C-alpha cells in the first residue's frame, strides 16, 4: 500500500505500523458521536428521565408536548417534501430535458436559495406578511392597506412556504443530476420503439430517476422536520409548536429530561423516514444507468410553451432569491418596519443610540456585542472548517486504506451517523454529555470549545465524504511514480499530494464555513452570552421584535457567506491552473 501519510510527515513509520491513527480516530469518533448519543439515551433512563418519558408520551401533557408538535412536524415534513419535489422536479426537468431559453442561468438560479439561510426567508416573510394580531408593527402588505389573514401571516402555511422556498433547490440539485444521467440513447431507443413523448416520460425517464425522486423527497422531508428557524419565527408567536421548537422550549426552560426525550423522538422520526427511503431505493433495482457515451442528454422542444415556462421559472427564482434579500435590505433601512420604502435611514446600521428610533439602541456596527458576535462567527466558521476537514481527511484516509476491514466499516458507519440526527437534537445530546463536569474535566457548557466540538461532529459525514473524494483524486500510481524518482515523503507531500488535494480540501472547508456561519439550529441551544454568534443575535432581535436589526444582521451573514463563496471560487482557479472551472 502506498503511504499517503499526510498527517505526520516525521512519524510516517508509526503510521505505517497502522495502529496509532486508527486507534486515535476510533477514540475521537467515539467521543464526538457515540458518547453524546449514548449519554442522552442513558439520561432518559434515570428515574427523572423515565418520568419525562411518561410525561411526554402518556400523560395529560402529552397532547401538548408530543402529539400536537408531532402532528405539525409531520404536516410540515410531508408538505415540504411534496412541494420541493414539485418545484425542484419541475425546474430540473425544464433545465435538463427541454430547450427552455437561458437554461444555464435558470439552473444557477435554482441552486441559490439553498445558500440563503432559512431564517432569512422567514424574516423576509414576516416583514411582508406580518399582521397586527399580535400587536407590534404590521408588515408591508397590511401597512399598505391589504388585510392579511392569520393563516397567511403565521403558523403552518407560511412556515411550509418558507421551507419549500429554501429546500426546493436541494431537490432540484438531486433531480437534475439524475435527469442528466438519463442518456439521450435511452430516450432515442424508446423513440425507435415507436413510443410517444408521454409514454417515454412515464415509461422510461420517470422510472429511471425514481430513486433520485425518493432521495430528494426524504432529504427535504428530513430538513423540514429538523428545521428550527422557520417554525420558531413564524410559528412560535402563535404557539404553533414543532418537535424542534418544543425541544428548544423544554431545554430553555430547564426541563432538560423532557427536552432529551423529545430529542430522541425527533431523531427517531427523522431517521425512520431516511431509513425507509433508503430501503426503497436500495436493492436490485438500485440501478446504475449503464451507458457508454453518456454526457449527451435529449432535449425536448417546448414549442409555444418555451417562454411561458421560462417566465414561471424566473418568477420562482426571483421570489426565492432576489426578493428575500431585497426585502431584508429595505427593511433594515426603514424606520417603520411596515413602510419598507419610506424615510430610509442608516440608523440601524451605524446610528448612534439615544434617539427616537429603535428605543434608543445604537446601530449594529456601533454595538459591541454585535462586533463581538461577528468575530466569534467568523472564528467559529474557520476553526470548524479546519478541524472538520482535518478529521474528515484522516477518517477518509483510514477508511479507504483499510477498505473491507471491520475497522473501516465501523468508522464509516459511525461517521455517517450524524446524518440521521437533526442538528437541534444533536445539540441537546451535547448538553446531556457536556452540560455537567465529567470527572476532573470542567463542564464545557456555554464555551466556544463546545460549539466547535459539536459542530465538527455534526459535520463529520460531509467531511468524510469530501475527504474521500479528495483522496480519490490522488491515485496510488501518481504517488508511486513520484516515489520512484526518489523523492522523499516530505518532498512528495508538498510537490504532489498537497497541490492535488488542496482544491478539494478548500472547497470542502468553504462549504463547512458557510454552513456554520448561517447555522442557527445547532448553536441555538449551545450558545451563551459569553460566546454569541450572529445568527443567534439575529434570532434574539427578531424574537424581541426589533425586525430591522434582525434583518440587518441577516444581511451581514449573507454577505459573509457570499464573500466566502466568491473567495473560494477565485482562489480555486488560481491554485490549480490546469483545471478549467
Amino acid at each position, binding site marked *: 500500500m502506498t503511504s499517503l501519510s499526510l498527517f505526520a510527515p516525521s512519524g510516517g513509520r508509526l503510521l505505517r505500523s497502522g495502529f496509532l491513527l486508527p486507534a486515535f480516530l476510533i477514540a475521537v469518533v467515539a467521543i464526538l458521536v457515540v458518547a453524546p448519543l449514548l449519554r442522552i439515551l442513558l439520561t432518559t433512563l434515570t428515574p427523572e428521565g423515565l418520568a419525562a418519558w411518561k410525561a411526554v408520551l402518556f400523560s395529560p401533557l402529552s397532547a401538548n408536548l408530543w402529539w400536537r408538535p408531532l402532528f405539525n412536524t409531520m404536516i410540515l415534513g410531508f408538505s415540504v417534501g411534496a412541494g420541493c419535489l414539485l418545484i425542484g422536479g419541475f425546474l430540473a426537468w425544464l433545465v435538463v430535458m427541454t430547450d427552455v431559453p437561458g437554461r444555464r442561468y435558470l439552473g444557477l438560479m435554482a441552486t441559490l436559495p439553498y445558500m440563503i439561510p432559512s431564517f432569512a426567508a422567514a424574516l423576509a416573510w414576516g416583514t411582508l406578511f406580518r399582521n397586527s394580531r399580535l400587536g407590534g408593527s404590521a408588515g408591508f402588505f397590511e401597512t399598505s392597506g391589504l388585510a392579511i389573514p392569520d393563516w397567511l401571516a403565521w403558523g403552518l402555511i407560511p412556515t411550509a412556504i418558507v421551507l419549500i422556498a429554501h429546500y426546493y433547490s436541494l431537490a432540484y440539485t438531486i433531480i437534475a443530476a439524475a435527469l442528466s444521467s438519463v442518456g439521450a440513447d435511452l430516450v432515442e*431507443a424508446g*423513440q425507435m420503439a415507436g413510443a410517444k413523448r408521454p409514454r417515454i416520460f412515464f415509461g422510461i425517464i420517470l422510472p429511471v430517476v425514481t430513486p433520485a425522486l425518493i432521495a430528494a423527497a426524504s432529504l427535504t422531508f428530513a430538513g423540514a422536520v429538523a428545521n428550527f428557524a422557520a417554525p420558531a419565527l413564524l410559528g412560535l408567536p402563535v404557539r404553533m409548536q414543532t418537535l424542534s421548537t418544543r425541544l428548544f422550549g423544554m431545554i430553555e426552560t430547564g426541563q432538560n429530561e423532557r427536552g432529551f426525550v423529545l430529542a430522541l423522538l425527533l431523531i427517531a422520526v427523522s431517521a425512520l423516514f431516511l431509513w425507509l427511503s433508503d430501503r426503497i431505493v436500495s436493492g436490485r433495482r438500485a440501478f446504475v444507468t449503464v451507458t457508454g457515451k453518456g454526457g449527451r442528454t435529449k432535449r425536448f422542444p417546448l414549442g409555444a410553451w418555451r417562454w411561458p415556462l421560462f417566465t414561471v421559472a424566473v418568477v420562482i427564482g426571483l421570489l426565492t432569491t432576489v426578493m428575500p434579500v431585497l426585502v431584508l435590505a429595505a427593511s433594515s433601512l426603514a424606520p417603520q418596519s411596515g413602510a419598507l420604502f419610506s424615510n430610509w435611514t442608516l440608523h440601524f446600521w451605524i446610528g448612534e443610540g439615544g434617539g427616537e428610533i429603535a428605543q434608543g439602541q445604537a446601530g449594529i456596527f456601533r454595538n459591541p456585542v454585535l462586533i463581538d458576535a461577528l468575530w466569534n462567527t467568523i472564528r467559529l466558521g474557520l476553526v470548524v472548517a479546519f478541524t472538520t476537514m482535518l478529521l474528515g481527511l484522516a477518517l477518509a484516509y483510514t477508511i479507504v486504506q483499510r477498505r473491507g476491514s471491520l475497522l473501516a466499516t465501523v468508522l464509516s458507519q459511525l461517521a455517517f451517523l450524524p446524518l440521521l440526527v437533526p442538528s437541534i437534537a444533536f445539540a441537546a445530546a451535547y448538553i446531556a454529555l457536556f452540560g455537567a463536569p465529567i470527572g476532573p474535566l470542567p463542564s464545557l457548557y456555554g464555551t466556544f470549545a463546545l460549539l466547535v466540538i459539536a459542530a465538527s461532529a455534526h459535520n463529520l459525514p460531509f467531511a468524510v465524504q469530501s475527504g474521500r473524494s479528495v483522496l480519490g483524486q490522488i491515485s496510488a500510481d501518481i504517488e508511486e511514480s513520484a516515489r520512484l524518482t526518489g523523492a522523499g515523503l516530505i518532498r512528495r507531500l508538498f510537490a504532489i499530494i498537497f497541490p492535488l488535494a488542496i482544491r478539494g480540501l478548500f472547497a470542502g472547508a468553504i462549504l463547512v464555513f458557510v454552513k456554520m456561519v448561517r447555522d442557527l439550529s445547532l448553536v441555538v441551544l449551545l450558545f451563551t452570552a459569553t460566546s454569541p454568534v450572529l445568527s443567534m443575535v439575529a434570532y434574539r432581535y427578531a424574537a424581541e421584535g426589533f425586525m430591522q436589526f434582525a434583518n440587518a444582521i441577516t444581511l451581514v451573514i449573507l454577505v459573509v457567506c457570499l464573500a466566502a463563496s466568491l473567495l473560494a471560487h477565485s482562489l480555486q482557479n488560481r491554485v490549480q491552473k490546469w483545471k478549467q472551472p
Partner: protein
Amino acid sequence: MNAIATGAADAIKIRSLVKRFGAFTAVKDVNLSVPAGAFLVLVGPSGCGKSTLLRMLAGLEAPSEGEIGFVGQTVSSGVGGVIADAGRRNAGLVFQSYALWPHMTVAGNIAWPLKVAKWPRDKRDRRVREVLSLLGINALSERYPAEISGGQQQRVAIARTIAPEPSILLFDEPLSNLDAKLRIEMRSELMRIHRATGATSVYVTHDQVEAMTMATHVAVLNNGRVEQFGKPIDLLRNPQTTFVATFLGTPPANLLGVRRIDDGLVFGETTLAPAALAADHDEVQLLYRAEDVCVGVTAGAPSLVARFAEAAPIAGRTMVTAMIGELRVTAMADGYFTATPGEQIPLSFIRTPDAVFAATGERIHQ
C-alpha cells in the same frame, strides 16, 4: 413484406443527402442505394459523418437537403424533415452504448417495444422467448442490465432491436465496447442474425476489418463525403482514391510519391516505373501492396534502402515495417525475419504498381 409489394424498389435509397449543423456540414451530398437483404457497412475515421448518416436513416435527425427512401417510400427529406417518425419506419437501431433501460429486466427490455406496438400478450411472450434463444440468453431473462456483462448487454440490445421484426436493422459501432476476442465472436453472430432475420442492415464502424468481413456493400466515408461505394472486394482491388487505398486492406498498402524524369517515374534517385503509367501528370503516387514489396535485393526489380522499424510474423511470413526518410513502408519477407531497429535494409519493388494516383488523390486510369 413491403419490398414485395413495391417490386424492384431499393430497400434503402439515399439521394443527394446533406446534413448541416450550423456552419459545419457533417454529411455532403451522399447518394447510395442497396437492395433488400443487403448488409451495408458505412466505414470511415471518426468524425467522417457516418453516425450522422445513420441517425438520419433512423429518423432521429432530419436531413438539411436530399431524400431518404425505404422500400420506395420517402421517409425523410430536406423539405419535409422527418416524414415517418423513428418508430414508424419499421427500422431498429442498436446503439453503441446499448441504451438498455436500466429499470427493466432483460425480458422487460425486449418486451417493451412490443408493448408499445400493441402486440397481444401471448404473441409478445412467444416472440420474447424466441429472440432470447436466438441470441442464446434465455438464462438472463429476469436479470437487470446492471447485473450482466458487457457482451451480454450487447446481446440484449440486439434482441430488443430485432424483436419487433424490423425490415431495416441499423447498427451504430455495436462492437466497439467489446474486447478483441468477443468482437470476433459477435461479428459472426451478427452475420448469423442478419441472415436469420432477412432484414436489410446498415452498419457503422471505423474498423475496416469489420467492413471487409461483414459487408455485401461498403461505403467509405471521409469528411462527410462518400469516397467510394461498392462491393468490398472491388474497393480493395480498385480503389478510386488514395484515401480508400490506404484505409482498406491488411496490412496497409504503400503509397510512394514520384516525379517524372525523362521516361521514368523516380522516387529519390531510383526509377520505380515507366512514365507511361502517369499519363500526362508530372507528379503521381504509386500504390504498392505489401506483398509486392520484398525485403532484400531482387534481380531486375528496382530497390530502395530503408531503416528497419519493426517486424511481425504473419502466417508463415513476416510483415516488415521500415522507414524511407519520413515515409513508412510495409513489406513482406519470407519465413522469419528480424533486424535491429535503425539497421539499413534493402526493399525491392517486385511488381508494377497496383494503381497510380494523381497528387490530389484521384485514380489515374490508363
